[in-house]
């Protein structure tokens, strides 16, 4: 804040606060007693509506001590905690400091729970119900937003429960995907192929996975595929896990099966990003998450 306002305002606030608190004390001292004419009356001397008086019903003296305690508390608080302008307080308390302290406490408390899993192999953890329960909670918190609560994905978000993997399904590949993320890019080929060429290639791709297709177009598309698509998807269209290029000969279609979806993909390309989680999660949490994801495709 100090770069926006002059330090005058720190003093302004500080002086008003301290003077107000001290003024409360002066008021208590000045108003605790009063002088009345001896024997005249027991009323406070206040009158309302011309003739309505008020008796002096003294408060118990401990009540007055409560007032003094609040004043002492206020001064002690302002000495210990930040409150007087930019004065940081004797204890130097900050919100960030408190967060760091609580984080440290949480790590000390939960660290040992994670620590016992850190040394175990993913394949081993995938059979450990306790580890899987933690992994599932992490998954539901972090991954389920895109991959769905049952991990079966949806359009554009891969299904993690089958044995079909874009980047490989062994523990190391899964862990790499979670840690560093993935960015699968298919460039748009409409300019290179033209409208007819795109349609021909699409029918050839449909033939690869056994969909109904136009065999004339498919035959025309085959050389175009070898020329343009095979670089990533392979000569047989089996894909390439190093690039994340999908296998086009199976029944898994990330953006939907059928002519329209394939033409859309070839024409406009695809750009699909899985974010990196190494900044968000500790290595042990990623380890447990890997075990959970790995276990999903091992069940079948």
């Amino acid at each position: 804040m100090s770069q926006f306002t002059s330090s005058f305002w720190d003093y302004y606030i500080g002086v008003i606060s301290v003077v107000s608190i001290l003024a409360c004390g002066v008021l208590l001292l000045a108003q605790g007693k009063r002088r009345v004419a001896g024997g005249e009356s027991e009323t406070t001397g206040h009158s309302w509506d011309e003739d309505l008086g008020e008796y002096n019903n003294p408060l118990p003296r401990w009540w007055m001590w409560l007032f003094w305690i609040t004043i002492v508390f206020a001064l002690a608080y302002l000495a210990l905690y930040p409150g007087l302008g930019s004065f940081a307080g004797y204890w130097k308390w900050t919100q960030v400091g408190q967060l760091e302290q609580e984080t440290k406490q949480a790590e000390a408390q939960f660290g040992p729970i994670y620590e016992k899993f850190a040394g175990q192999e993913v394949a081993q953890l995938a059979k450990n119900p306790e580890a899987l329960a933690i992994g599932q909670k992490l998954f539901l918190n972090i991954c389920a937003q895109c991959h769905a609560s049952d991990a079966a994905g949806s359009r554009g978000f891969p299904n993690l429960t089958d044995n079909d993997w874009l980047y490989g399904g062994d523990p190391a590949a899964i862990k790499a995907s979670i840690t560093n993320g993935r960015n699968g890019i298919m460039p748009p080929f409409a300019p290179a192929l033209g409208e007819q060429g795109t349609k021909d290639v699409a029918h050839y791709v449909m033939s690869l996975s056994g969909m109904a297709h136009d065999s004339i177009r498919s035959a025309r598309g085959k050389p175009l595929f070898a020329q343009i698509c095979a670089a990533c998807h392979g000569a047989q269209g089996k894909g390439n896990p190093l690039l994340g290029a999908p296998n086009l000969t199976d029944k898994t279609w990330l953006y939907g099966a059928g002519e329209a979806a394939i033409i859309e993909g070839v024409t406009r390309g695809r750009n699909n990003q899985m974010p990196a989680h190494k900044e968000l999660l500790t290595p042990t949490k990623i380890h447990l998450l890997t075990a959970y994801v790995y276990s999903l495709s091992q069940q079948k």
Partner: protein
Amino acid sequence: MSKEGAAAEGLVEQSLYEVRKTIHPRAVRGWFAAWRWALVWATQLVFYGLPWLQWNDRQALHFDIVHRKFYIFGLVFWPQDIIYLTVLLIISALSLFLFTAVAGRLWCGYACPQTVYTEIFMWIEQKIEGDRAARMRLDAAPLGARKAGLKAAKHGAWIAVALWTGFTFVGYVTPIRELWQEVLSVGPWLAGGAAPLLGPWETFWILFYGFATYGNAGWMREQVCKYMCPYARFQSAMFDQDTLIITYDRERGEPRGSRSRKSDPAALGLGHCVDCNICVQVCPTGIDIRSGLQYECIGCAACIDGCNQVMEKVGYPKGLIRYSTTHAMEQKLTRAQMFRHAFRPRVLLYSAILAGIVIAAGVSLWLRVPLKVDVIRDRAAIAREVEGGSIENVYRLQIMNTEEEERYYYVVVSGLPGIHLGGQSQFDVEGASSRMVTVRVRIGPGAAQPGTHPIHFQVSAVGIAGVEVREKSVFIVR
């Protein structure tokens, strides 16, 4: 002499605060004191005794704040049942309104913990230090061995009761039998043994509640009612002309004065008040009821008991101080007429509302289904096409079993043609716990237009009729 000068001469300094004058109430016996003691026994047997009762192999009354479950005999309340706590508070408030409209500060005089514990503490005080006169003598006496001994004994006894009260209070939150073992472990620790099992918060709350009991019932007493209690102030606002209040029959009593037992008061020109001051001596708030209704009066009726004893002794009819109403006094109503005035619109209205809420709460508790379900639709993954062109949506069901036995539940989904669960549809949930399950809901290709469609999940316990919950959600087709 000027006016100012005259005033200045006689000026007296007056403090707006004063040291509390200790009240030494005289012990009293009688019909109303018996009632108060009956309520002391009833409330304290319940308070000290209930946490020791067992039910289903657990504490019968256990407010498990850590796990957010309240066990009350056969019932388990979850945070979602907060409405029952609300209803309980509403019933309490309405009862207070009703009792106050009918007979003033009944709660304050007989059942309020402040009154009940003060009564217990005063009883201890009287047993150790003696009656009112002895206590006043003792307080006035200089500190000597006897005085120090008596005071130490009194405070020791008070602290023992207070600590047991604090222990019992915490015993509602932490299982009291375990807590007792933990408390016992403090002894060996003090003798130099291993660290006690008693946790820091348990210790704090036992001491805090114990200190509050000791401070309020031993030291603060009537000051809690006079200066701190909000009920005390707003209850008097609920009085009306037909509310039964503790009344001194001025017409019968005045002019007051002492007289010989044989003399005829009429001949002396005196009323029935013999000015013995017993009513002032027994008052726990230190007022003189003969000055009329005062805000300090907690309605304990000690003055009625005290006065009746005196009236009996001197041979006058009882009831010089009695429960009566302003109307009864002004219009000289008979008792029957006075009690008929109790049935006035405000009382009838309070009673009707109270009865309505009690019945509704009872019925609702009776019909309460021991199962709760929350349906949370997957938000980002809207809908997906699976093999064969079927459309699938994914939901998380939070199934909460609020019974203490393990239950099996089956899930049925309805609302669209051919809608069904793909995958698991039966789930077991342990007693008094909740489980999050993921379900896939599927419809055939073309079974619904693109857009959102309302659907319903029905979760039912296997083999138990009536334990079922229907929750709505939406199914999205795109």
